[in-house]
C-alpha cells in the first residue's frame, strides 16, 4: 500500500476493505453480498441474513429455555418493586437496613422497572423472553456485522458461535446488563463498520445513549468504543498520511469526535445526572467487589477463561495470516476490552463481541481459498421468500418459548421448571408462611437474599444482598466471615442482632455444623438444600 498525503476518503473504511477483499475473492466463494435489497423491495432479505436469523433463533430458544438465575435478578426485581411502590427514584439504599443512608445511584432503574412490570404482567416466562430477546439480538447484530464486512455468511456464523461460546455464562444471567449488551453491540458494529454519520445515526445514537444510561452502567463501555473510534481513526489517518495537519483535518475524525461528545452528554438525561460518571468507578473500584467471583481476574482455571484463551490464540494466528488490513479501531477495542477482561472476568462480556467480529472476519479471509474450492454459494438475490422464512422461524421460536407455551395453554410454567436449581424455593415458601419469625436482620446468603426477600414481600430484612458496592465494608467483611463459618460467628451474629439464619448447606457447611453444636440456636426448617435456624432467645 502506497502512502498518500491525501486524507483517506470515507470509502477507505471497512466497506472499502470488504470491496477490496471481494475483488480478490472468486465468484464461487461461499459468500453472499449484503447489498441493499432493490429488486424485491425493502422487506426482502438475502439468504445469508435468513441463515443468521435462524442461528439467532437457536440462540433465542436456548436462552429462553434457560432457567432464571437465583442471584441478582431478584435484587433488581426488588428494587423495581420498590420503584413501583414509591413512584420515585431512590436517593439512599432502601432495602437493606445496614446500608441505610448510603447514596444509591441506581443507574439501571428503568431496566428494573421494566423487569418488574414484565414479571407482574406476564410472569416469570416474560423475563425469560426478555433475556432471550436481548441475548439473541446481540448475537444477531454481531453475526450480521461480521458477515457484512466479510461478505460471508460463514463469517457471521463463526462470529455467532464465538460470541455465544465466550459469553454464554453472561448471556444466561438475566440482569440489566443484557440490555446494555444490546446497546453495546449496536455501538460496536457501527465502530467496526463504515462509521457512517447519517441523520438517523446522529439521532439514533444520542437517543440510545440517553436510554442506555437509564438501563445499565455499561454506557461507559459504549463511550469507550466511540472514543476508540475517534482514536483509531486518527491513528489510521496519520499512519497513511504521516501528517498531523491532515490527521487533524480529517472530517470523519471530526464527526466521530462530535458524536462522542453528544453521546457523553446524552447520558446525563437520567435521574442521577452527573453522578452516573463517578458511580461507574465507584462500583468497579469498590473494595467489596474484590471478593466477588465474577469481578476477579480472568484465569485459565475458569471454563470461560479457557475458551477466551483459545479465541485469543485464534485471533493472533488469524491476524498473522490474514490478507485483510487491520484497522486501528478494531485493535484498540479488541485489546482494550481484552485487558479489561484480564482485570476482571465480568468484562469478558464486552470483549466477546469484539473478538467474535475480529476473529470471524480474519478467519474467513484466511480460509477464503479453501472455501472457494467448495464451490458452494448461497443465493445472493434478496427475496421475500427468505423474509417469510425468517419470520416463520422467529414466530416458531417464540411459540416454543416458555411464554409462548404459557400463552397457548393459559398456564404459567411452574416455579421449579422456571427457576434455577439453586433457587431456595421451598425455603422461601416456608419463610413466607411463618407468622412469627423473630424480628431484626436475618443472615441470608447474599446469592439467596434477593429471592427470599422477594418471596417474603420484603418483610425479612437481609444483612446483605448482591449490590455489594452499597454495603459498608465492615458489614461485608463480617458477612464473609460468618459465611465461611469463622470461629467468632457467635460474636458476629450478636454484633448485628441476628436472630434468624438461612444456610445454604452446600456453601456454609462449617457454619451449619457450628450452629448445630450451639445450644443457643435451634433448627426451624431443613431440607436437602437449606436450613433455617433461630435463636432460642431472640435478642
Amino acid at each position, binding site marked *: 500500500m502506497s502512502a498518500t498525503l491525501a486524507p483517506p*476518503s*470515507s470509502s477507505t473504511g471497512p466497506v472499502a476493505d470488504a470491496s477490496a477483499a471481494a475483488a480478490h475473492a472468486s465468484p464461487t466463494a461461499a459468500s453472499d453480498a449484503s447489498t441493499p435489497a432493490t429488486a424485491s423491495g425493502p422487506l426482502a432479505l438475502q439468504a445469508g441474513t435468513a441463515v443468521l436469523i435462524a442461528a439467532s433463533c437457536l440462540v433465542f430458544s436456548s436462552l429462553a429455555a434457560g432457567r432464571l438465575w437465583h442471584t441478582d435478578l431478584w435484587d433488581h426485581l426488588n428494587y423495581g418493586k420498590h420503584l413501583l411502590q414509591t413512584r420515585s427514584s431512590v436517593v*439512599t439504599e432502601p432495602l437493606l*437496613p*445496614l446500608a*441505610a*443512608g*448510603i*447514596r444509591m445511584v441506581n443507574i439501571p432503574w428503568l431496566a428494573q422497572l421494566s423487569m418488574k412490570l414484565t414479571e407482574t404482567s406476564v410472569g416469570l416466562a416474560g423475563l425469560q423472553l426478555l433475556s432471550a430477546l436481548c441475548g439473541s439480538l446481540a448475537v444477531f447484530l454481531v453475526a450480521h456485522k461480521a458477515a457484512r464486512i466479510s461478505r460471508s455468511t460463514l463469517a457471521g456464523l463463526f462470529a455467532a458461535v464465538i460470541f455465544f461460546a465466550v459469553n454464554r455464562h453472561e448471556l444466561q444471567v438475566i440482569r440489566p446488563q443484557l440490555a446494555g449488551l444490546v446497546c453495546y453491540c449496536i455501538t460496536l458494529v457501527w465502530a467496526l463498520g463504515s462509521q457512517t454519520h447519517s441523520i438517523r445515526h446522529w439521532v439514533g445514537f444520542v437517543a440510545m445513549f440517553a436510554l442506555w444510561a437509564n438501563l445499565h452502567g455499561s454506557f461507559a463501555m459504549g463511550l469507550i468504543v466511540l472514543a476508540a473510534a475517534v482514536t483509531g481513526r486518527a491513528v489510521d489517518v496519520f499512519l497513511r498520511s504521516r501528517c498531523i495537519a491532515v490527521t487533524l483535518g480529517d*472530517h*470523519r475524525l*471530526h*464527526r466521530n469526535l*462530535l458524536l462522542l*461528545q*453528544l453521546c*457523553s*452528554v*446524552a447520558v*446525563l438525561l437520567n435521574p*442521577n*445526572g*452527573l*453522578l452516573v460518571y*463517578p458511580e461507574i*468507578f*465507584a462500583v468497579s473500584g469498590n473494595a467489596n467487589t474484590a471478593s466477588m467471583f465474577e469481578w476477579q481476574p480472568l484465569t485459565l482455571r475458569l471454563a470461560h477463561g479457557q475458551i477466551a484463551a483459545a479465541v485469543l490464540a485464534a485471533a493472533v494466528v488469524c491476524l498473522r495470516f490474514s490478507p485483510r488490513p487491520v484497522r486501528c479501531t478494531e485493535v484498540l477495542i479488541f485489546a482494550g476490552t481484552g485487558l479489561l477482561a484480564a482485570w476482571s472476568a465480568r468484562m469478558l462480556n464486552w470483549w466477546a463481541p469484539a473478538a467474535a467480529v475480529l476473529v470471524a472476519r480474519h478467519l474467513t479471509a484466511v480460509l477464503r481459498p479453501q472455501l472457494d474450492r467448495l464451490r458452494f454459494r448461497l443465493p445472493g438475490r434478496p427475496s421475500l421468500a427468505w423474509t417469510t422464512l425468517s419470520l416463520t422461524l422467529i414466530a416458531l421460536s417464540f411459540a416454543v418459548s416458555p411464554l409462548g407455551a404459557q400463552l397457548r395453554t393459559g398456564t404459567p410454567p411452574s416455579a421449579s421448571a422456571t427457576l434455577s436449581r439453586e433457587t431456595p424455593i421451598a425455603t422461601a415458601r416456608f419463610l413466607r408462611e411463618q407468622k412469627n419469625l423473630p424480628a*431484626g*436482620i436475618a443472615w441470608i446468603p447474599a446469592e439467596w437474599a434477593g429471592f427470599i426477600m422477594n418471596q417474603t414481600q420484603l418483610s425479612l430484612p437481609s444483612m446483605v444482598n448482591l449490590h455489594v458496592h452499597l454495603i*459498608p465494608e*465492615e*458489614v461485608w467483611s*463480617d458477612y464473609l466471615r460468618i459465611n465461611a463459618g469463622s470461629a467468632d460467628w457467635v*460474636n458476629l451474629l*450478636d*454484633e*448485628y*442482632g441476628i436472630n434468624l439464619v438461612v444456610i445454604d448447606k452446600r456453601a456454609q457447611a462449617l457454619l451449619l455444623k457450628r450452629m448445630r453444636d450451639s445450644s443457643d440456636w435451634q433448627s426451624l426448617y431443613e431440607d436437602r438444600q437449606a436450613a433455617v435456624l433461630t435463636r432460642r432467645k431472640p*435478642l
Partner: protein
Amino acid sequence: MTSSRHTRQRQIVSARTMLIVQAIFLGGLLIAWLTTTSSDRRILAAAALSRPYPLDAFPRTDTAAVVTPLYDQPDLVTDQQLAAVLKKLIPRFSRSHLRPNLIEHALRTWGGQVTFLNPDAISGPKMVEFLTDSARHLESWDGKAKPLLEDTPEGIHVRFGEDSASSVHHDHALAALTEAAIPLSSNVFTARRALQLKHVLAEALRDFRLDEGETEWSSLSFALWLSPDGIPQWHNGAGRNITFDMLVERLVRNHKRMGVCQGTHRIYTLMALLRMNEQHQGSLLSPESVAIAEKWLLDVRDLVAASQFPDGSWNPGWCYGAEYQLHIDPTEKISKRVIATGHHLEWMSIAPKKFHIPADQIQKAAQWLLTNVQNTPPSEIDQNYTFYSHVAKALAMWRKTSPAEFWTTYRQNHPAAETFDTPASTPTPAATAH
C-alpha cells in the same frame, strides 16, 4: 465529479455545526450541574478531587450541651461519704509515660476547670493541655511515642487503640473534652499546626463509620455538640448520611453483653440521646426511634433489676437478667463488679424514674460501692482508676452535682482534704484499659 464534490461537502463538518455541538455539550454539562442537588455536588467534588465528602453540618455554638443529673439523694450517699470517695479519685498520676486513657477518665470526672491544691494532683487545665497539646503528650513520653494528635488534610485525628500512648477508644478523648465543657474554639496543637477543638470534632464527624466496633463515645459527642442547634443528621467522609435515628438503631442492635465496659456505655449514650432529644423539643430523634430506645432501655431496666447480687453489686452477666448466676466466673476480679455497678448507677442518675430499678436496689448498689471504695486500698484504686472514676462521678451525680463542684465547696471547710498519707502510685496499663 460533481456528485463526488457534493458528497465531500456533506462530509465536511462546518464551523457552525462544530460550535453548535460544543454549545450542546457545554450547555448539557452546565444544566446537569445546575440541576444537581448540593449534596450530590459535594459527592462529585469529592470524587473528582479524591477527597472525603465535605462536612455539611457543624455546631454554631461554642460549647456543648450538658446532660444534667436529675436527683439529689443524700440518703444514697452523704456528703462525708462522697468526699471520701472523691478524695481517693483525685488524679495523682506520675507525669512520666502518662496514658491518655487515664487523663480522659480523670477529665471526664473532674472537668477542665478544677484546680487541686495538692501539687501531686493534676488540675483540669493541665489535663486539657495534655490532651490538646502534642508537646505535653510527647514530653511525658520522652519523645519516644507517636503523637496522640495526628494531622489530617481536613482536621485532627486522635490516635486510638494502638499503644499505651494513644487513646483506647475511638472518640473517647473527644467525648471527655466535650463532657468537660471545653469550648470548640480551644486551641489544639499537633506536632505541626495550631488548630482548634472544632477540627477534632470535624474529623470525628467525617471519619465516623456506623459499623465500627465502638460507637458509644462518638454518638455521645455528636449528640452533645449537634443537639443545641437541632442538627439531626450529617454526611460522613464517605458521603453516607448519618442520622441520630441510625445511631439509635446501631446502639440497640447488638447483644446487650457487647460494647464498652460490659455494654453499659451503650445504655448511658442512649439515655443521653433521649435526654438531649427531649431537651431540644424532639429535634434529634423521630418518635419511632424514641419508642425503640425506650423499649430497649426498659428491657435493660428489667434485666438489671433481675440480675443484682444480694450484696447490691452487678457482674458482667447483668445482661442475662435472672440467669446471671449462670454467668458467674469464680476467678473474676472484683473490679469487674465495680465497672458494672458504677456504670449502672451512673446512667440511672440521668434517667427518668420510669427507667429506674426499685429504689431499694439502687440504695443497695450505692452502699456496695461506698463499702468497696472504703475498703479498697488507695494503691488498688489507682491501679483501677478508670473503673473507679465512674463510681465517683455516679455518686456525685446522685447528689445532683459534679465532683469538681462538690469538692471545691467541700474543701473550703476541710483545708486538709487534699493531704494524703501515701504517695501516688502509677497504674499499670492492663488494669486501666477499658
